């Protein structure tokens, strides 16, 4: 496995999740190119970059929803199996609501993790309170507003008590109040020890929530490190352009 300088610099033990020379091809193009990185326990890592940089694709590769063309993804230093999948959860940009009630959506996630009976009922109630959706418990999930659906999606992802939560631009279509509620849910989970990996376009959100940042450009890691360091002294031209608010494309940073 290739050496990940960030992990070694910080003297960390085996990272929670690590990739080595990760590549992904589709339609004859290399969309993710030689990405080596590590995700450390209980950190909040922001993945940023222009449209088409490969952010969502990288998230799916890390979560195991896509098979890499080359390279590896390791969970606690090992090839991830079903246990790794159950220890992770993901919130998608457009939340997928099952054609069931709000509480049935939560119960379904618990059932997938083998939680039954009284425990399931109790944890469902707790999740409803956490997501401020108790009054909507029996409503069909698909009639909720966009913000409510995304809160339910986050609560559903967290209800199984994952070690690692992936979020793919969870607030991209939400107003500030709804965004605040999602950020509160994510920060509360982080405070309880959940490691966060989130794709965001919002620099303000990254500043509010991020510990580490990975800037992607054309499928490659342009820059990465502690968020404060990267924001203070960006080295890659695409990162500088982003931070300076200049317009740039995946081809012309």
């Amino acid at each position, binding site marked *: 496995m290739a050496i990940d300088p960030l992990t070694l610099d910080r003297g960390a033990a085996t990272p929670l999740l690590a990739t080595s020379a990760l590549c992904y091809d589709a339609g004859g193009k290399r969309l993710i190119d030689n990405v080596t990185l590590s995700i450390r326990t209980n950190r909040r890592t922001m993945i940023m970059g222009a449209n088409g940089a490969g952010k969502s694709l990288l998230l*799916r590769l890390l*979560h*195991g*929803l896509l098979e890499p063309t080359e390279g590896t993804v390791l969970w606690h230093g090992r090839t991830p199996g*079903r246990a790794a*999948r*159950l220890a*992770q*959860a*993901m919130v*998608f940009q457009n939340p*997928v609501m*099952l*054609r*069931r009630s709000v509480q049935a959506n939560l119960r*379904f*996630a618990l059932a*997938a993790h083998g939680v039954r009976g009284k425990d399931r009922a109790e944890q469902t109630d707790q999740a409803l309170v956490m997501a401020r959706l108790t009054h909507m418990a029996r409503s*069909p*999930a*698909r*009639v909720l507003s966009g913000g409510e659906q995304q809160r339910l999606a986050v609560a559903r*992802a967290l209800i199984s008590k994952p070690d690692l939560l992936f979020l793919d631009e969870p607030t991209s279509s939400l107003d500030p109040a709804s965004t605040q509620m999602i950020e509160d849910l994510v920060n509360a989970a982080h405070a309880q020890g959940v490691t966060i990996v989130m794709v965001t376009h919002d620099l303000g959100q990254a500043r509010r929530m991020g510990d580490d940042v990975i800037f992607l450009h054309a499928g490659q890691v342009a820059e990465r490190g502690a968020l404060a360091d990267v924001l203070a002294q960006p080295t890659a031209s695409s990162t500088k352009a982003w931070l300076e608010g200049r317009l740039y494309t995946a081809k012309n940073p």
Partner: protein
Amino acid sequence: MFSFFDILTEALGLILSWDRALSEIVLLSLRVTLTAVALACLIGLPAGALIGAFRFPGRTIVTVILNALMGLPPVVVGLVVYLMLSASGPLGVLGLLYTPTAMIIAQTILVTPIVAALTKQVVEDLHGEYAEQFASFGLRAHDRIAALLWDARYSLLTVALAGFGRAVAEVGAVLIVGGNINHVTRVMTTTIALETSKGNLELALALGVLLLTIAVIVNAAVMALRASAVRAAYA
């Protein structure tokens, strides 16, 4: 010469009088049809869901065959089932020929491909929406199938309805394997064919009206259920 309206009037009179012979024929029709549709759903729903939700070698060929089987000629199915169940056939020892069970078998064979093929389409569409979320949940194959069938339940009611429509109107296969024996295997469709050939048009038309009424009632009930589910965003 006969007047259509005279015959219709007599047919309606027959329905209103609801004699024992008529009810026997209608009830046997419903028993055979509903049992066949239930069996076809038992086989076709999970089979269609499997084909719709998962990629496997030969899936395209299976789909082509399944779609082709939707147009199975009933008389051919009737003939094959007849050969299987006849005294010299491999299942002759069961003594099922010319019984309602033989009719149920024939109808199940006819309806199962319809249920499976339509289920495949419904589940394939839904799975396209759910696939990443299910993968993220780490769901096993049987849990995926169960969840997809449950969430598609209102659409699948329409699938079952299509199967019911095919079964309840079927005549060729049930005539061959059932024999249209009075008080034993005589159902609405075979009776209509027989009574028409005998010139007993009142009874034939009475059964036709009943057949149509049953089809309309079942359709209306399913559509109403589905419409309420759509309104509640469950479908």
